[in-house]
């Protein structure tokens, strides 16, 4: 043995035979999973079929191949996907994203959710033409992102030793995004109650909210035990993501972000429009999941 290999196998695909059809299912068994994981697929916390470890053992024994795949060393138990003589996929084996539906908070507590709604509504305030961050669904978007693979920093290198580096070395925090939000929101609550006569962020005036936000941005407002500035940067980035990402993820509700700028969304063919210079593209946006007429 050259290296000590993790005891938990980093599979993310199992192939099983159901009748005569081979079925590929994406499963996730350890943080070491190699390969593709759809961010949306886990963000509601819905279980992935066959993702328990005991299931895994069974599936592993079932690891078999169809005509598209042969195991070269059948006596042994090699676990690779061997591809030979043809492509290995059955139809519809991909991993489309899971649609997020509005509903109770999944990661945030109701109090946290209210603060985040207030925050995103100042970062992107409503105006007569376009709703603000709250009605665009940015807080719902962030909640579901934090509940999923993004929130748990899945796939990122999270091993120590942790040290503060230079800005050029990138984020070195041991905190996951989900933990960062939880800490920062608690510290923000404390800050606001101390500074604004016991009121939480959601209840201070818009001017006061903006003052807190630009204080965080400029590193002038200090949050207890956590970097307010780093939190601000995450919040701003995630809010913009929520405003402009495909509506399937819970933000950009009714494609308001796209309509505001004139982005037609998930359309895929502009051949007839490339050379129509300086003309406004006429069709309304569509999302991955289509559009409501």
């Amino acid at each position, binding site marked *: 043995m*050259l*290296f000590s*290999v*993790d*005891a938990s*196998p980093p599979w*993310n*695909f199992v192939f099983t035979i159901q009748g005569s059809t081979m079925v590929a299912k994406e499963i996730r068994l350890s*943080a*070491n999973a*190699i*390969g*593709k994981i*759809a*961010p949306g697929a886990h963000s509601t916390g819905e279980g992935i079929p066959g993702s328990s470890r005991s299931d895994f053992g069974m599936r592993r024994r079932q690891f078999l191949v169809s005509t598209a795949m042969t195991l*070269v060393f059948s006596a042994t138990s*090699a676990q*690779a*996907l061997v591809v030979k*003589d043809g*492509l290995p*996929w059955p139809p519809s*084996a*991909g991993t489309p994203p899971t649609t997020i539906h509005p509903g109770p908070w999944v990661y945030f507590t109701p109090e946290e959710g209210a603060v985040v709604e207030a925050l995103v509504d100042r970062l*992107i*305030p409503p*105006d007569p033409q*376009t709703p603000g961050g709250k009605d665009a669904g940015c807080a719902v978007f962030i909640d579901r992102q934090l509940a999923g693979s993004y929130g748990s920093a899945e*796939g990122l*290198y*999270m091993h120590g030793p942790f040290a503060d*580096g*230079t*800005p*050029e*070395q*990138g*984020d*070195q925090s041991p905190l996951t995004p989900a933990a960062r939000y939880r800490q920062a929101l608690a510290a923000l609550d404390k800050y606001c109650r101390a500074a604004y006569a016991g009121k939480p962020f959601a209840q201070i005036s818009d001017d006061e909210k903006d003052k807190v936000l630009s204080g965080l941005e400029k590193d002038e407002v200090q949050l207890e035990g956590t970097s307010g500035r780093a939190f601000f940067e995450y919040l*701003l980035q995630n809010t*913009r*993501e929520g405003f*402009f990402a495909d509506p*399937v993820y819970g933000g950009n509700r009714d494609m308001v972000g796209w309509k505001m*700028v004139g*982005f*037609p*969304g998930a*359309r*895929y063919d*502009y*051949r007839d*429009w*490339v*050379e129509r*210079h*300086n*003309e*406004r593209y006429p069709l309304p946006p569509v999302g*991955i999941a289509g559009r409501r007429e």
Partner: protein
Amino acid sequence: MTRKLPATDVVIVGLGWTGSILAHELTGAGLNVVAIERGPWRDTATDFPPAYAQDELRYRIRHDLFLRPEQLTMTFRNNASQTALPIRSWGSFMPPNGVGGGGVHWNAETWRFLPSDFELRTHLVGRYGEKFLPEDMTIQDWGITYDDLEPHYDKFEYLCGTSGKAGNIRGLIQAGGNPFEGARSREYPTPPQKQPYGPTLFAQAAQGMGYKPFPQPSGNLSQPYTNPLGVTIGPCTYCGFCEWFGCGNYSKASPQTTILPALIRRPNFEARTQCEVSKINLDKSGKRASGVTYVDSSGNEWEQPADLVLLCAFQLFNVQLLLTSGIGKPYDPRAGEGVIGRNYSYQVTSSVGAFFDDKIFNPFIASGSIGMCIDEFNGDNFDHGPHGFVGGGYMGAVQTNGRPIQTARTPRATPRWGAEWKKAVAKSYLSSYESVTHGSCYSYRDVHLDLDPTYTDRFGRKLMRLTFDFHDNELKMSTYLTDRLAEVVQKMGPRQLEKHPRRGPYDVTVYQTTHTCGGAIMGVEPKTSALNRYLQSWDVPNLFVMGATAFPQNPGYNPTDTVGALAYWTADAIVNRYLKSPGPLVQI
């Protein structure tokens, strides 16, 4: 326990661009080839169908197609006085993972290097004298010439169906093409892509100033094309979800759309996916590779013996595998000795933003490579004498996307949030335009790759450590190129123009390109290069190392046309020379 498998003729580490090319050429020569690929199998219909390929969050922002740093990353510092820290999430460059490699999610900007790029040191010293070069600059000649490589460039471009307009066919300058390019043997396989408004305006402005604009050569195809392997590529629809994304239309040149459908039918080819090669094994003499060790997706370890080992794991991982396997002498920057990890280089890009009142650019009508460029300031196409730097780059209006999370622009003075930001974004999205320079990055004594003393991967292997910063020569170059670009953009008539030249220090969180180069370079002698002119290891002659790993420094262009051409050049050398008499192809 490591289990040993039956031997094969050839084992290929990594099934991206170079792995696919070599597998195809060597199975064609009758050899049994096993390709071992770290990531999953990927295909158009299942992995990036136009039903959900157009997802900026998933692919651009959350990096769905790329290597997960948890699986493997590297550490980084600007210079030796700092402690390198892990790159915990990708930023400046995006390492590939999965069948097709970087070919899945590249832009497909398909450039040949200039003839002088291959003999860089000789050329520059000849024109400007030794003293003109910074003392710590370690640029070298490649050991091959443009003419050696031309037939192989041609082969790669005809594999891809590259869309473009030739500027020089057998020495005759062609109207509408790049007059600075090396002579090519024939026209591009397909005509240029259509140009949207921004590139068209840029080209008019450049022409008015006496420059010679031409369409950027593109692997996003302008029309249907059937390549010499009988694989058909569709026309690009200008969807704007190209770089960082797989193409749902079968219209971007990639291993999937050009080689794999033919390769997979060969009975003497086999791919093993989700298997990470952890080591290249040497026999007792230490002068011969006996095969590779890999770990499959359930953690089992296997040894695959082979007569020939081809390292096709992308620039970074090629170097890491050489370092980890103890092949070649590691580079020591203090002594300036050793070859593995030496001459790392990157890319130096910059941009000019322009805001207009009266124009609609439709930035979402885009492809990975669409655009109009000028090459007057690339390589040594202009006299560097008065400027005090070497190197250069192409520049132009390259319209890659209008995906709003990434690209919604506002003029510099705008706040980053709030009502003013919102108003500015709404106003600028359709009516602003960004033009870019894509510049060279030469190599230096202190810039290198080695193994990190502290951080390890999931196998307990040391992570590779990158020590890199921009040098004055490159920063000067970037300022100069950006100024020239701004002059052209000014002629496009914007209300407001903003220059963004590259400034130091190098920041690993800000995306530039994934054109990382060097670390085990090709050259004329083993003292200063790891590979000979056929990309064969000087130390282990049955090991060939592919990819931009071999570039002694990075010219102002994108690497893949040259990476592909070098793969064909090596395949030719293996089939026509090495197989006849296995051993070193260059005697010293």
